[in-house]
């Protein structure tokens, strides 16, 4: 088999069947013209080395075949910013989904399945990435060539957020963490409402008597925080009014958590016989109260930061 035939065979492999003959026929004619011209210039017939050099100069068969086909991109440059934004929201969704699963496992077994949480996050994030990328591939290479979706066609300058400082924009990661942690807490605090009776009866741990009076207050504030998170998802920037709400929420939750961290016990065994997975309720309570104290201090800091930012925005107007 001649070198040129091998090259044509390789090029045709990378071409769609309906265009294979037409393109390779023309490409072969062009290569033969070049070889003929080369032979004329030299005054003798070309060798296999000459053919090899000409083919090498032309390019790899896959590259050449691809250059004859319409350009295809996984995601077009025009759609890429929107693609990145959708991936960000996908991360929030995965966080929320895994937080719910983690919460349900914890309540059912008293077991903090951290490894399962991490592996679940990775697997679901990869799945979400593949799914979103697949959808954007179709949008980037629409059948017939006409765009199926133009995300930036309808916008109104008046609707742009009144943002002066970069920190006013609320990042997707920040939203994901806040929303999923609030949802997790919300589910944890309301588990008697949605758990079936048989599951409730088999729970190995529950809230201690000393912490129960605090739960409705905490549940109410966390519920309000969730609504606030949804508002932030819709309008992802800080304003003075939103910062005021955030400061109040942070302060209230901080006070509640700091008070609860002073309690002797947050959780207690429910009396159900276990297989010994709960190592020590005392140790768990120490970890939880230390955690509540740490989060309480962090929320106090956030409250202070919100107040400082309100002051910054007041100066700007």
């Amino acid at each position, binding site marked *: 088999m001649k070198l040129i035939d091998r090259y044509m065979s390789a090029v045709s492999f990378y071409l769609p069947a309906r265009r294979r003959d037409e393109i390779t026929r023309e490409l072969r*004619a*062009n290569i033969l*013209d070049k070889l003929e*011209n080369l032979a004329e210039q030299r005054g003798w017939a070309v060798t296999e080395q000459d053919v090899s050099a000409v083919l090498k*100069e032309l390019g790899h068969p896959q590259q050449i075949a691809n250059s*004859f086909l319409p350009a295809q991109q996984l995601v077009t440059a025009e759609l890429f910013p929107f693609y990145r934004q959708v991936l960000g929201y996908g991360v929030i969704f995965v966080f929320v989904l895994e937080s719910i699963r983690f919460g349900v496992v914890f309540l059912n077994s008293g077991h903090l399945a951290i490894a399962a949480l991490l592996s679940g996050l990775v697997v679901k994030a990869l799945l979400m990435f593949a799914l979103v990328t697949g959808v954007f591939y179709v949008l980037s290479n629409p059948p017939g060539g006409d765009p199926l979706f133009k995300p930036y066609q309808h916008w109104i300058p008046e609707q742009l957020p009144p943002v002066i400082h970069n920190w006013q924009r609320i990042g997707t990661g920040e939203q994901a963490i806040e929303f999923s942690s609030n949802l997790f807490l919300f589910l944890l605090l309301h588990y008697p409402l949605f758990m079936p009776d048989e599951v409730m009866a088999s729970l190995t741990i529950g809230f201690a008597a000393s912490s129960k009076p605090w739960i409705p207050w905490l549940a109410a504030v966390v519920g309000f925080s969730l609504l606030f998170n949804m508002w932030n998802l819709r309008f992802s920037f800080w304003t003075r009014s939103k910062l005021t709400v955030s400061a109040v929420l942070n302060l209230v939750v901080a006070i509640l958590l700091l008070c609860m961290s002073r309690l002797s016990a947050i959780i207690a065994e429910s009396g159900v016989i276990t297989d010994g997975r709960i190592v020590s309720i005392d140790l768990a309570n120490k970890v939880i109260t230390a955690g509540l104290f740490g989060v309480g201090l962090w929320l106090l800091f956030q409250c202070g930061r919100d107040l400082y930012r309100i002051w910054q925005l007041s100066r700007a107007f």
Partner: protein
Amino acid sequence: MEKLRQELRRGILVLAVLGSLRQSHYGYSLRKQLQDAGVDIDEGTLYPLVRRLADQGLLISEWRQSEGRERRYYRLSEEGSLLLASLSGEWQQLNSCVGAILGVGRETN
């Protein structure tokens, strides 16, 4: 730097190819004509470009037998001629504007 150079050349090459195909050419003869005119373009870029222009209806092609071999000849279609006239006007205007800008820059230096 190379990427910027390629971007600058990309649009101009279309104009040069359309301009050359006012007369019939097959792939290799078109490349020779462009080369002789000082427009160097490698075959891996030229042949797919010609096919794309033909697919868009800007060129008419036909297979002919010459010197014992078959060759695909291309020439401008009616639509291609109209586009060439429009692009030529655009090119002349851009060329004079950019030329003036570059000239001013050279004078101030």
